[in-house]
Structures are given as C-alpha cells and as structure tokens.
C-alpha cells in the first residue's frame, strides 16, 4: 500500500513528532507508515484521514510495497 502521509504532513509544515502527537501514536509509527513499511489499522487510517480532512482513499492507495 502506498500513501501520501509524508506529503500531506510536510504541506502543513508538521514534524513527525507533531503528527504523532495529533494521532496519539509513537513517532516511529509515523516514520514506518511514511516509509511504506507499516500499514496502519483501519481505526488509525480513519484517524489519519480525519486529521488531514480527507478520506482514506485520498491518502492510501492499494498496491506497491
């Protein structure tokens, strides 16, 4: 699964730590999601989508590593 989390975060000028705080997860979680090594659970994907004011489909795309 590929995602636009890093792009959306940087567009807001947020650090990984800031986004982690917003989502109440560790910064490593954000790092692992952005690097495509970890796919978030559905509840966390919804939280991310709500945080950026988008839908899950607009952030996460099936396929890729």
């Amino acid at each position, binding site marked *: 699964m590929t995602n636009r989390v890093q792009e959306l975060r940087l567009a807001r000028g947020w*650090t*990984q*730590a800031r986004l982690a705080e917003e989502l*109440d*997860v*560790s*910064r*490593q*979680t954000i*790092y*692992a*999601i952005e*690097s495509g*090594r*970890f796919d*978030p*659970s559905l509840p*966390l994907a919804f939280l991310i989508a709500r945080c950026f004011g988008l839908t899950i489909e607009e952030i996460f795309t099936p396929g890729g590593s």
Partner: protein
Amino acid sequence: MTKIPNADAWADARRMFRWQSSLSGFVVVALFAIAMRQLGQADLDPSMRLPWLLLPIPGLAWAAREQVVHWRRQDEFYRMVNARAAEIAWPLTLAWIGVVALLATAYGFPMPIPAPFGLPSDTFGWMEVILVPIFMHMAAFLVVSKRYTGRR
C-alpha cells in the same frame, strides 16, 4: 530520508517511560538476589525456607502488573513489532531450553564452567538460564524494530 532529531528520539523515550516500571524491575531483582542468597545458606533454618521463598512474590506481582501496563500503553506499531520479535525469539527460547536440558543431563546442574588463563572457575546456573532468553527477546525486538524504522 530525513535525519531524526535527538529531541524527537528523547520525546519517544519519554512517551513510553514510567518510573514505576524501572523501579519494579530493580525491586524484583533485589528481592530475588536476597532470597536466593538466603536460600543458598547451608545452615538455613528449615522453618525459614517458606518465608524466603515467598519474599520475591510481591515484587514479581508488581513487575508483572507494570509489564501489562507497558503493553497496554504501546501503540499498534509496537504491538506489531513485538509480535514479529516473538515469532523469532520464542522458537529460539524453546531451542535454548532443549540445549540446557541436554547439557544439564550430560554435566549436571549447575554446570561447572572451566576457567581459562588461571581465572576463577564459575558455574552455569539458573540466572544464566533465565537471562539468555531475556537477551534473545531484547535482541529480536531491536532487530525487528530496526528493520521497520531503519533508514533505507
């Protein structure tokens, strides 16, 4: 990939740190050390065996509770890393128990360790049997964690 600032790394450590967890670890090790020392006395009064055996129990209960709290505070990523690490560490732990059982059958327990270079000889006992799997789990966690968070 961007370099992780030290401040972020410290923030991560602070997020998971609980002084109660650290203190419970020290307390349980201290209580075990005291109990094992007393139980190992050749002239131990038999009526004192049970009290010394029971001494580490409160510490163990506290440490176990702190471990549960620690697990519950982890986010889903670290739960996944722990699960992956367990997939590696548990088979190794079972293999370790098998190796120790074989060695203990062959050489007795605790096992004498021959000391080279005139160093004092030592024995391979319960502490070593317990510590090795703990280090295995820690090493597996570090390896898996690095695989998911290391830079590409």
